[in-house]
């Protein structure tokens, strides 16, 4: 059973919209003057140096960080008016890493993704279990069934978290650095999976990536954040102009190969350096 995007064809308005957003942790301002509109079915990568505010942007979108100014709306509703369950049905987040205090099997962790859907008292319905199985299959971790998630490698754990978000079957999928611990092959597989979710199911993807090459190759739209502001927003060619790379990342643009077409090898570049 494939997850269905809710309202994919019905709403031409942006599924995700931030206007004039300013956010801070205590006194430290992390985002200023953010204007961002994402249409349903888009695939957007958020890139930028460390500490630029990428993860904070995700938190604002998910409603776990309340902005000091500006408005955030998710599927047409202002986020502050939605309760957490309503947000969870609209947006699934793949976190960077989690810690497990107790032994939990892979399928149990993936099953957590069905929390917003399952019966509050009786738990998972057969449809939920099927969704879990489908998500595991789709992410390709069937071989890990029955294993204690705490015993997996970091890369395997990341895939489990990805499967959990897939099982959540929300129309918007946000990912915070989902490829950090993955080897090259799995990085590509993950990107292809995201593409599949986007093209086949119409899921809107918003991914924070540190790898410029991956971002440029797999995402038609890049949003470049630096110092809490959106510095560029557009196609990889526009965003990854030479002078921009020099200004924002402080490295020789020769380090980053821009893709010219299919079949070119991707180099991860390690481009996320602090200025």
């Amino acid at each position: 059973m494939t997850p269905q995007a809710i309202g994919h064809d019905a709403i031409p308005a942006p599924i995700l919209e931030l206007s004039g957003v300013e956010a801070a942790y205590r006194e430290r301002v992390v985002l200023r003057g953010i204007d961002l509109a994402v249409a349903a079915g888009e695939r957007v990568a958020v890139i930028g140096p460390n500490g630029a505010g990428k993860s904070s942007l995700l938190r604002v979108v998910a409603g776990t960080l309340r902005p000091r100014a500006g408005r955030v709306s998710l599927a047409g509703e202002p986020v502050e008016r939605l309760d957490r369950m309503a947000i969870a049905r609209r947006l699934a987040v793949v976190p960077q890493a989690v810690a497990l205090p107790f032994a939990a099997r892979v399928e149990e962790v993936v099953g957590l993704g069905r929390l917003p859907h399952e019966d509050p008292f009786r738990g998972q319905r057969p449809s939920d279990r099927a969704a879990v199985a489908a998500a595991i299959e789709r992410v390709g971790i069937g071989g890990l069934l029955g294993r204690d998630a705490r015993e997996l490698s970091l890369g395997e754990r990341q895939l489990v978290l990805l499967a959990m978000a897939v099982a959540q079957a929300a129309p918007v999928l946000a990912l915070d650095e989902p490829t950090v611990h993955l080897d090259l092959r799995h990085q590509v597989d993950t990107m292809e999976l995201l593409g599949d979710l986007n093209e086949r199911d119409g899921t809107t993807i918003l991914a924070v990536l540190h790898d410029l090459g991956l971002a440029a190759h797999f995402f038609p739209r890049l949003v470049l954040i630096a110092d809490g502001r959106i510095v560029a927003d557009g196609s990889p060619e526009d965003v990854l102009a030479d002078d921009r790379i020099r200004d924002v990342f402080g490295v020789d643009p020769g380090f980053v190969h821009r893709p010219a077409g299919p079949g070119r090898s991707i180099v991860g570049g390690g481009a996320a350096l602090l200025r």
Partner: protein
Amino acid sequence: MATRSETLGMPRAGTGWLEGARSRPGALVVGGLVALVVVLVLGVGLGSVTIAPADTLAILAHRLLGLEVGGTWTPAAETIVMELRLPRVLSAMAVGLGLAVAGATYQGLLRNPLADPYVLGTASGAALGAAIGVILPIRIVLLEFGLVQILAFVGALLAVTAVYRFSRTGALAPLTSLLLTGYAVGSLLAAGLAMTMYLSGANLRQIFFYLLGGFEGSSWLQLGLTTPIILIATAAILVRARTLNGFLLGEEAAAHLGIDVRRERVILLGLASLITAAAVSISGLIGFVGLVVPHVVRLVVGPNARRVLPLSALIGASLLAAADLVARLAGGIPVGVVTAIIGAPFFLILLRRARTGYEL
């Protein structure tokens, strides 16, 4: 992607009966209920005075069900069974149930396998309240609850409220802050307890007996007042099993999965603390039940709170009632000693089997 499965390792084969048990939660519940009934019958039938089993059953049938099954028994036997043993066994079950559920809740909420119902200051607060109740020269008896028990209940709740309030300030993550504040407040209250014990003079022994915990003073009225609190709060936690599951990966992940973290944290903490306070007010401080029972249950059925909570309740009730029976038959040793003797080795075994998967 079809070839990926092979590269990511082989699935672990389930180990025999453990797997079988895990996949049949219904059978486990039935097993738990059977254990409960067995412990109840043994607890009421055995004691320092020998009463023929037939007489015991006859007394129970007569008094509880109104059935006349014949047989003769002395009024003393009837008093022993109905006034001494039955309320005691039921009290032990209520407290065991409550402590196990509270322990499971705290562990799930604080995401700490070492958490038990006393970790946020409830034990120290109850102990200090009880000690003050012992040394105050006032005699209040409210519905058979003496000053000691009332102050123990109040002390437990005040302590955990204080811990919660103090932990909200500061920049630490809420869970870390709760645990550390719990430790600090608990230490402060323990110092107060030491001072009170020093000043207590001849009443020291009474305080000491409270600290050890026990069911010697069980009565129907006390049971009737605390059991509803324990059961209703337990039910309220049970319906929140989904929330507890959500907390498994952390508070942020829980929020993303749809849990209103701040509200649920307060509610779950409050319910678990209420259960703990009610339990310690009639039983004193009995350790290990709240810590070990949820772990053992998780070993068999996994971390799903929908299974862990009810099974912990059943196992906790049976375990504490059985421990109380052993304590009685061994000559009246404190029940806290029995639970420690059972619990400590279990805990060490758990530690040996624990994986180091808890890293950030």
